[in-house]
């Protein structure tokens, strides 16, 4: 008795490896295990892999290779910028110095915890932090940006696409306003890179964070793009790797995998994005035709192609997630790092959702590995599960 293969629809949490990634990681681990900073030929061989990946990652986001700093992932990239932007003794005092600067930090109210918690940490050390609100679709109000820029902040950091509902922020517009006001600008592009075209020049930012495993790369590797000339004080001091911007022995296998994933994404993104959007819309239509009393959250158009965040009336999202899991379908109720209920979703709270709408939601995120047959299987089982969850509980539970 074989159960049907599982269907993975949680690509906002992580993605399966892209073609060639597993081989690249294995080959680097097996054959190019030398220290990429070593002067000998073995070291050079490993270093070539690192530099080739650097070119590929830079190409994916329209940056220059020397502007790429490899990190352990988006959490590190974001922490590095938020705690290390600015020059020592420059007009922007760094967070790690004792005295906060005159200008504070501006973020959106819907940032990922690694940004939100970093700025909360700054705030506890006396920094002024402004959090720009969002509308019901999760979009930052440009009017709020203008307000937040007076007095001039030291740094503006707004995510490119939201991890929960997938809403894409007008980062280029925000960056333009912020730059005009004289602030440095960072964007956490973790959910966007590899899924939609991202170009650092078009965005006009100074720093951009990305993570490999969100687009088919390995876990534990990511990058921070730092515009040439943009000031940055490192978090990691040591051997001076990455031009002194991030010390630590090169994670050659991880960087090799990241490079292959970046090259694959650059080549396939346009076609894959269309296919993923088509599957997502097929799922959306299918669920709507089978279930009454639901709302799709996030922006109707300015949204990542794979994101479908849905609130079901009179249903506990977590119960629906578990029922789908037991039926072989992986979705989530929120960020995997908090696997969260209402309290742990400041994103939905910022969008003005009441507790019922927030608790009744699940996040379904389609990826390039999914098929129409899989989507149809989900559409086949989901309405019955929702109907079952909406039935009144048995008498023994009502007492």
């Amino acid at each position, binding site marked *: 008795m074989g159960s049907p293969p599982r269907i993975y629809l949680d690509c906002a949490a992580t993605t399966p490896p892209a073609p060639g990634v597993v081989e690249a990681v294995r080959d680097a681990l097996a054959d190019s295990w030398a220290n990429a900073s070593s002067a000998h030929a073995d070291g050079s061989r490993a270093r070539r892999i690192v530099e080739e990946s650097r070119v590929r990652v830079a190409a994916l986001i329209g940056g220059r290779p020397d502007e790429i700093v490899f990190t352990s992932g988006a959490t590190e990239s974001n922490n590095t910028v938020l705690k290390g932007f600015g020059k020592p003794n420059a007009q922007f005092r760094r967070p790690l110095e004792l005295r906060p600067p005159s200008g504070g930090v501006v973020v959106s109210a819907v940032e990922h915890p690694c940004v939100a918690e970093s700025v909360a940490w700054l705030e506890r050390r006396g920094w002024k932090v402004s959090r720009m609100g969002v509308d019901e679709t999760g979009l930052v109000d440009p009017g709020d940006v203008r307000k937040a820029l007076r007095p001039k902040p030291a740094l503006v950091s707004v995510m490119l696409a939201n991890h929960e509902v997938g809403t894409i922020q007008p980062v280029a517009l925000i960056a333009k306003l912020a730059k005009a006001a004289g602030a440095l600008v960072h964007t956490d592009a973790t959910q966007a890179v590899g899924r939609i075209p991202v170009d650092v020049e078009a965005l006009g930012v100074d720093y951009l964070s990305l993570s490999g495993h969100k687009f088919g790369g390995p876990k534990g590797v990511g990058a921070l793009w730092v515009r040439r000339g943009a000031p940055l004080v490192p978090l990691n001091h040591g051997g001076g790797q990455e031009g002194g911007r991030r010390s630590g022995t090169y994670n050659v296998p991880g960087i090799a995998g990241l490079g292959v994933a970046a090259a694959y994404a650059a080549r396939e993104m346009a076609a894959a994005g269309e296919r993923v959007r088509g599957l997502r819309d097929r799922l959306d239509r299918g669920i709507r035709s089978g279930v009454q009393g639901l709302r799709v959250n996030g922006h109707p158009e300015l949204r990542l192609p794979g994101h479908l965040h849905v609130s079901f009336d009179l249903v*506990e999202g*977590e*119960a629906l997630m*578990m*029922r789908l*899991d*037991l039926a072989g379908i992986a979705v989530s*109720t929120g960020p995997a790092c908090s*696997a*969260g*209920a*209402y*309290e*742990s979703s400041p994103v939905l709270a910022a969008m003005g959702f009441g507790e019922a709408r927030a608790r009744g939601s699940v996040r379904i995120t389609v990826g390039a590995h999914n098929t129409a047959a899989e989507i149809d299987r989900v559409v086949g089982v989901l309405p019955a599960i929702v109907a*079952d*969850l909406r039935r009144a*509980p*048995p*008498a*023994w*539970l009502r*007492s």
Partner: protein
Amino acid sequence: MGERIVAAMSGGVDSSVAAAILREAGHDVVGVTMRLLPAADVGDVRAVAEKLGFPHEVMDLRDEFRRAVVEPFLAAYAAGRTPLPCAACNHALKFGALLRRAGELGATAVATGHYARVEPGEGGRWRLRRARDASRDQSYFLYGITPERLSHIRFPLGEMTKDDVRAKARALGLANAEKPDSQEICFIPGGDTAGYLREKLGEKPGAIVDTAGRKVGEHSGVHFYTIGQRRGLNLQGTEPRHVVAVNAATNTVIVGSEDDLLSSGCEVEGVNWIAAPRTGSVGVKIRSRHGPVPATVTPGVEGRVTVRFAEPQRSVTPGQAAVFYAGDDLLGGGTIASAVR
């Protein structure tokens, strides 16, 4: 496969073995771990479920735990009582929210690793009974289960000793077979209740008085004291003195002799009857390591019961439970509101 049963899994040896027994009996087991604390990590629980070969889910009950267990715990201490958080958790979460979730998952029952027994009784009523191994019995913490739910609860360890359970865990190759018992309150780091209460409730100095009302010392907050306590009073004089009462309204701690600790009975509130409510002779347990001792109960209005002990009892502590037994059968129980001298 047999009926679907949700096994509450903490990661400890008891709940793991309970789940394994049901799985071996052919049930369609779904392991569920309740996520109760902000920083909880459920990694090793997943490994147990994987080893035993059934699916596992994590239920986020952080909000509910804070509202139903932690906040009432702090409120009780602030009111001069000594609360029983495990009983609140059992009633509100394990056999409340988790049982409801079990229903949503198509299960007919929740199983836990408690040492207690549930058995069919007469007239469609189910009985909640002490564990076969009286030294392990945890029924005292289960008095709040509403009687309609009993038939949807399984305690697979009710007939077993702890040694049986550990042997079973070893036979199953469970990594947690030798894991020590958890004795502390799960949400208090390192078992430092005083430190936790100081962090959450601060200090609120007041007077320590004797039973005649004379001031004999000072305390740093009524929430640091519990009935019967001798240590940490820092009083002058040689005669042994115990906390005999805590009065949050006047912010005083009252101390007295060992005889002053004795009570002839207590008032109990919020009583839940599992058996048919009764008047007369029962056994009463007034804390987890106690009795039961002979007493008579007289139900009053609004879930109140007056208990009169056959012999005076020491350290009757408001906030703890008074649980009524007839032999091994748990009849009902409630929260001690006050001692009767």
